[in-house]
């Protein structure tokens, strides 16, 4: 057991709420629609986080609560009914509709579960309704995906077939690659959750072995366990080391020898290590400070330290699930400072005092830190880019070396011309 230093902090935070995860979930399941029941703030948040909107009609929207909806809950339920009817007649291609709770809907105790139940009866055979909360009073950023997946678990049919279930949104190309590698290793029945179509949910049961692709799925894991699934605990598939251990853990659960795994992935690992070299020239020895946002911070820190030679100043995480993160924590160097939660002002004081070379942070903080002369990387990019697996290790390192390289280019040019 590694002796990392675990700290907790509370105070004002600078993080996204769970609604933000809709931005990648709706891309993963193009036949689903995410209807936030919330305020104008919620609508504005999602469109701002999604950047400029490029779709003619997006597969997410907000039923904006107005004054009259707050006056009587009965009316609010009726109003929501009306909005859903309008939406479905306008968008007949929707197969699954997620009713997403928000801070205001949670506070006024709008009962989305009951609404979903009623709608399920009415639209039986046409659209399925599920509900979860992406509210900021309960969830941070990626936890929204946890809520969405947890809401789908009851809809998954039972099956005792032996299978490997990859849980957590993956880029499609990464998913294909993983399936091919598992196939080569000798695990042939591999499915993904969430699936590419919301209606094609995998069946689960006591012979389902769950392998997480993302670290932020605590609630989903708990419910899958209740359904009899076996959870494979492993580091997450970021970088060569994490991915190798991840493949090994899966192989072990299927009683496949380590040798077989190494035989398959050794060439990939060698290739990846070579590709990492040019990034490590830049990254090695540089000081890294991770602010909390996506819960990927601990795995990223492990990768950037162990494989890229970066020095860890502080690793922030919005939430730490020790069971799921145990194998990651074991891979971190002793005395790594981990801070769960945030007091953004105090944390920024520590950033300034430690003079890091690179800070991983949210978009609200990036330019202000750059203006202070500190290079940054947006954490939101980790959830939009294909970063998982051995083949992507160099691309993942590239996300961090690019800002440093850019800084070098601009600084040295300035010096040369002066």
């Amino acid at each position, binding site marked *: 057991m590694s002796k990392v230093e675990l700290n907790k902090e509370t*105070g*004002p*935070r*600078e*993080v*996204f*709420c*769970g609604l933000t995860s809709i931005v990648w979930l709706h891309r993963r399941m193009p036949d689903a629609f995410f209807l936030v029941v*919330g*305020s*104008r*703030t919620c*609508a*504005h*948040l999602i*469109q*701002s*986080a999604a950047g*400029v*909107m*490029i*779709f*003619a*009609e*997006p597969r997410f*929207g*907000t*039923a*904006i*609560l*107005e*004054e009259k*909806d*707050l006056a009587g809950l009965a009316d*609010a339920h009726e109003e929501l009914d*009306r*909005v859903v009817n*309008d*939406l479905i007649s306008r*968008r007949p*291609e929707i197969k699954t509709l997620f009713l997403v709770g928000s*801070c*205001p809907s*949670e*506070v006024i105790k709008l009962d989305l579960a009951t609404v979903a139940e009623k709608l399920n009866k009415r639209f039986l055979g046409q659209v399925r309704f599920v509900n979860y909360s992406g*509210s*900021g*009073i*309960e969830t941070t950023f990626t936890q929204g995906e946890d809520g969405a997946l947890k809401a789908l678990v009851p809809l998954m049919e039972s099956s005792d077939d032996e299978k490997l279930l990859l849980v957590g949104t993956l880029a499609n190309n990464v998913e294909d690659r993983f399936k091919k590698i598992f196939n080569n290793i000798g695990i042939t029945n591999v499915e993904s959750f969430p699936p590419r179509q919301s209606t094609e949910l995998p069946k689960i049961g006591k012979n389902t072995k769950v392998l997480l692709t993302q670290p932020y799925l605590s609630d989903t894991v708990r419910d899958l366990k209740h359904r009899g699934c076996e959870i494979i605990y492993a580091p997450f598939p970021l970088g060569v080391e994490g991915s190798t251990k991840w493949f090994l853990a899966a192989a072990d659960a299927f009683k496949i020898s380590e040798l077989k795994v190494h035989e398959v992935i050794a060439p990939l690992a060698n290739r990846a290590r070579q590709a990492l070299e040019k990034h490590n020239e830049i990254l090695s020895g540089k000081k890294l400070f991770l602010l909390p946002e996506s819960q990927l911070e601990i795995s990223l820190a492990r990768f950037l330290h162990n494989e890229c030679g970066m020095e860890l100043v502080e690793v922030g995480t919005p939430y730490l699930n020790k069971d799921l993160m145990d194998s990651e924590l074991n891979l971190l160097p002793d005395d790594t400072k981990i801070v769960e939660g945030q007091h953004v*002002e105090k944390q920024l004081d520590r950033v300034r005092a430690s003079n890091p070379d690179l800070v991983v942070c*949210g*978009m*609200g*903080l*990036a*330019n*202000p830190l*750059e*203006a*202070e002369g500190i290079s940054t990387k947006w954490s939101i990019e980790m959830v939009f880019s294909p970063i998982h697996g051995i083949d992507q290790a160099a691309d993942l390192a590239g996300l961090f070396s690019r800002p440093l390289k850019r800084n070098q280019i601009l600084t040295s040019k300035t010096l040369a011309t002066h």
Partner: protein
Amino acid sequence: MELTLWTYEGPPHVGAMRVASSMKDIHYVLHAPQGDTYADLLFTMIERRGQRPPVTYTTFQARDLGGDTAELVKRNITEAVERFKPKTLLVGESCTAELIQDQPGALAKGMGFDIPIVNLELPAYSKKENWGASETFYQIVRTLLKDKVNEIDKINPQRWKSLGRRPKINILGPTLLGFRCRDDVIEIQRILSEQGIDTNIVAPLGSSPDDIERLTDADINVCLYHEIAETSCEWLKRNFGMEYTTNIPIGIKNTINFIHEVHEKLDLPLTNKGELEHKSKLPWYSKSVDSNYLTGKRVFIFGDGTHAIAAAKIAKDELGFEVVGLGTYSREMARQVRAVAKDLNIEALITNSYLEVEDAMKKASPELVLGTQMERHSAKRLGIPCSVISTPMHVQDVPARYSPQMGWEGANVIFDDWVHPLMMGLEEHLIDMFKHDFEFVDGHQSHLGHTATKAPYSKENKHEQSNINIQKEKSILWTESGKAELTKVPFFVRGKVKSNTEKYALSKGLPEISDETLYDAKAFFG
């Protein structure tokens, strides 16, 4: 409950943030859950600000709700005052905090600070961003100046004469995340200073609470953006007698009217009247022979009230376009926009739904769209050139170069920004002349290339499919001669001509459309 896929305006507390972030020595404690911090990125990303907005979010969580959220508010206020040492503290709540009724403003006032505290009550379930900005600015002005109301005499706009100094004005309304505010302020200050008029205070942008207290040193106020500053200007007029301008100096005529208005209010003689219209290149560029081809260009306009109205006037009177659509998302300015639309013999579109705007755009078949960043997307899908004239905007609408919308240079910028997306006059003429040559590719456009891209979702394609089916059902046959004649119509109006001709044929009960029908329809519609 309103189904919203995308919204032109954020919630009112984002308006408050725009004012707070525009100012110095001010801090805003916002009672809000985590997640509401997203608003910071509007400033740091779209405006590329190197400073965080001066906002502390109390970050209450579900587990706090059973306990004492008021204590949490107080703790955050204490920390914020200690850390940031503001000269004025704004205290308010976002949508969720409004529901739990902690009344953070009242709490703050009871904490014994010796700085002014502005209690912001911005109803999140009925109001929007621009209203929030206007209300916040008004509350700041009122809080900081209310003690002066009985202390000083009413301000006579002509008092500068007896005081033996140059006339002085305030410029009110510019904020961060406003459209080209930074450059408009520079341009207006430059124009006024040429006329011998000094600027006392610009606010909110760049001002401090101390500056707000000195607003009454000016002789009149220039209300540069009605959406943000009219309420404050009205209060200053009511309580201090300060006159304010109502002309928005966008476009040559409006700029000249604005200068006249300022001079009249100050009773300052305007000595260079004749020079004014030569200060910008727009009048000459518009008159020059190449611009002949701009005559009657069909333009569709949608934006905030101020910019949409100004654009309609410039388009019609200064560039000789035909305005075929005009609308706004600013409900507060619906009346004014409707009046301008009425003068243009069109009906104003007042809506928050970008899909309605896109539909209207399609129906109007314009050759140029002037809108917000969303109309840029819609226009791109439809293959129509577009220029952005209003917020909401994207990072590319905050250019590095000086590019105001107001004043003389603003008019130059507008000429370039609106005309460049179009085909150059001579180019258009040549294409028309040579379009039957084999080198000519149908749909050829200017060097800027506006290829319409198909929207990457299946619904629109399905729509198209069904449209085609509908047409087949009640279709009118185009004869060979009709088709041939249609291909001779310039491609950018071909769609319109086709639908008009079909409409005409249907109304006359014609079974088919020949070349003659096309000419009949043309004569019929004029």
